[in-house]
């Protein structure tokens, strides 16, 4: 059943009653292969590229590895040719699905008004909220061992806010790293990054030992869009909208700035008490349901949360607490050091330079930010990221910059995660480079021997 669902999503089929695609996958087969040698891997990659075969697992030919599962859908006309080729190269295979269309027919879904799920989700485009909702459900379905979608709360306009929990199955209680995107509606690169981040973690989970290492002890909680109403409003009505959509003054004025609404010196600096302002802090701390949704969860789990990250744009900053005072937090030196390491890792990718420092000094004073609040309730590492650019495109960052922005930001975020992981879970293999991998494995083995 799971395989079918995975397949259905992979094929992007949604067959409404009348518009039958009955013959589209007739006779197609899905083959399961475990390549044994590099030569076999190369031949399979060649086959996939030249015949344009549909890779179900992994997603890209370059991710085909010896010793790892390979699932390919072969169109009916090519089945014999592919099997002959595999036989010629003594590559053994099993037939996972004898007739793809048959399976599809067996469980034709009911007519639904849902948009057609595309065969592969584009992470280099901006997506409207409907597509992000679908994406979250799909990500959970396709990665159910690692990902669960959770209810966080509801927006002013009664839309459900979900976050994704990425968690390696284990009986250990884990610590948590939280990341939220899309507090401000117009900062579209922010939700794009959260989606990219999830995709990268899941795609590289099996091949990247660093990821598996930190997931041993840390769960990732990712909230792709917090200010859903605002985000939708920026797609449908006003691209440069910032706040949420709470009505005030008998519906003549809308929106609270969620990042001024948290209970961190609320209402004192860098805010307005007037709804018509973009930095209106709301009618009271946590007056907004979106704020309360985040607060409730984080309060509940705060003893396990090691790091709070919140993603914004634009400006190219990694901001440390506080915005509401120039008085630094107790661990300021460490916060700065880690942020500088993260910024350096980011710069290495494309030369993009980020400034690091407390909001109150680098940017401007402001109270009620989520990042200040997280630090104040005791979460030791709390950062605001302001992604690309520095103002030439600003909020309307071109879609062709999504990929480089996400790639470089990924390096910064993983640098922070790695630091937190090594700080709270020291010892064991620190697999920073493949060079040190062997050495650290030996060390681990030796340590294990000594300890046991």
């Amino acid at each position, binding site marked *: 059943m799971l395989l079918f669902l995975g397949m259905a999503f992979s094929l992007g089929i949604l067959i409404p009653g009348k518009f039958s695609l009955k013959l589209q996958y007739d006779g197609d087969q899905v083959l399961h292969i475990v390549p044994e040698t590099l030569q076999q891997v190369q031949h399979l990659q060649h086959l996939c590229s030249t015949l344009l075969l549909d890779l179900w697992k992994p997603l890209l030919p370059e991710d085909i590895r010896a010793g790892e599962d390979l699932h390919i859908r072969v169109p009916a006309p090519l089945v014999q040719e592919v099997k002959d080729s595999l036989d010629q190269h003594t590559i053994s295979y099993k037939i996972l699905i004898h007739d793809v269309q048959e399976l599809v027919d067996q469980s034709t879904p009911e007519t639904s008004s849902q948009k057609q799920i595309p065969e592969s989700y584009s992470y280099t*485009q*901006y997506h409207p909220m409907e597509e992000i909702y679908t994406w979250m459900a799909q990500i959970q379905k396709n990665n159910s061992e690692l990902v669960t979608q959770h209810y966080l709360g509801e927006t002013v306009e009664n839309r459900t806010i979900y976050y994704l929990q990425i968690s390696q199955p284990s009986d250990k209680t884990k610590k948590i790293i939280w990341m939220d995107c899309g507090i401000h509606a117009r900062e579209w690169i922010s939700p794009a990054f959260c989606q990219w981040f999830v995709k990268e973690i899941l795609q590289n989970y099996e091949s990247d030992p660093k990821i598996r290492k930190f997931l041993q002890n840390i769960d990732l909680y990712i909230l792709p869009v917090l200010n859903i109403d605002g985000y939708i*409003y920026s*797609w449908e*009505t*006003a*691209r*440069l*909208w*910032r706040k949420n959509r709470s009505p005030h003054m008998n519906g003549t*004025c*809308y929106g609270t*700035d969620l990042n001024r609404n948290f209970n961190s010196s609320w*209402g*004192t*600096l*860098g*805010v*307005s*008490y*007037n709804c*018509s*302002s*973009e*930095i209106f802090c709301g009618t009271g701390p946590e007056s907004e349901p979106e704020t309360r949704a985040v607060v409730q969860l984080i309060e509940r789990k705060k003893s396990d949360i090691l790091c709070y990250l919140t993603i914004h744009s634009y400006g190219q900053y990694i901001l440390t607490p506080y915005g509401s005072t*120039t008085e630094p937090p107790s661990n300021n030196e460490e916060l700065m050091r880690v942020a500088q390491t993260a910024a350096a890792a980011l710069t290495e990718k494309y030369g993009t*330079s980020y*400034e690091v*420092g407390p909001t109150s*000094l*680098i*940017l*401007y*004073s*402001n109270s009620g930010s989520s990042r200040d609040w997280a630090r104040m309730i005791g979460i030791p590492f709390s950062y605001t990221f302001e992604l690309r650019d*520095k*103002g*030439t*495109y*600003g*909020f*309307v*960052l*071109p*879609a*062709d*910059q999504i990929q480089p922005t996400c790639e470089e930001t990924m390096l910064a975020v993983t640098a922070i995660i790695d630091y937190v992981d090594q700080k709270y879970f020291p010892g064991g293999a620190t697999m920073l480079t493949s060079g040190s991998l062997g050495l650290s494995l030996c060390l681990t083995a030796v340590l294990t021997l000594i300890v046991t």
Partner: protein
Amino acid sequence: MPGLRAALPAALLLLSSFPPAAAERLPWPQVPGVMHPLNPSHREAVWAAWTALHYINSHEASPSRPLALHKVVKAAAKMIPRLGWKYYVHCTTEGYIHGENAGSCFATVLYLKKSPPVVHGKCVHAQNKKQIQEEDHRFYEYLQHQKKPITANYIPDSNGNIAHDHLQLWGLAIVGSSYIMWKQSTEHTGYLLAQVSSVKQQIRKDNAVAFKFIVLLHEIPTQQMNVCHMYLVWTLGHPIRVKYSCAPDNHGLEDGSGQDSGSAAGTSHETKGNF
């Protein structure tokens, strides 16, 4: 702190909307005549640099190649008694449109209480000046020869795209908007062009090229979007002439229509000279 941009009566009304002004103090001792070095990544230095570039873009730079701030290299500030704070900024620049290295500028910015900042700037260009002049010339002639007025909306569009044909139009909007942004800048409030909402060419009988723009200016730190109606006249070889009227975008409407927000904060200005 949120800039008190409104006219005085409206400002009195608005004052009650803002919490006590705690943070308009500058973070260094205010001894007149002494040069205080500034951290080049801190906001005072960065905004002074942008103020200078806005001035330079509107008075000296070309519509084909407006400048953007790359990085502040060094900055300092000095209090001039009875006048205000004067900032000294050395920054590197990049091409606004294509991001190429554009050289560097040294500028002084004197923020006055009741007038636009006084800027003196000198730039060293990494780009070929002759080539830029030729680009401007070609663009100018192209615009002059239009029989049908050029119109466009949303540059960049929601996805950040700009049609190749619209790049220089964007440049022209940047130059015109820079004039507005320079005039409105203060020590505590800065501006950047967020988006060109619409542009409509006005065909003229004289040699000049004219456009009606609606541009959205992002105001920092208030985060306000200001909708500015800008009438721009460009005569090649002469400074650009700008007439403008701005108001905060309170309804989330980008076309600037329906400015009945009740806020009195509309400001109308023109450059000297005939239109």
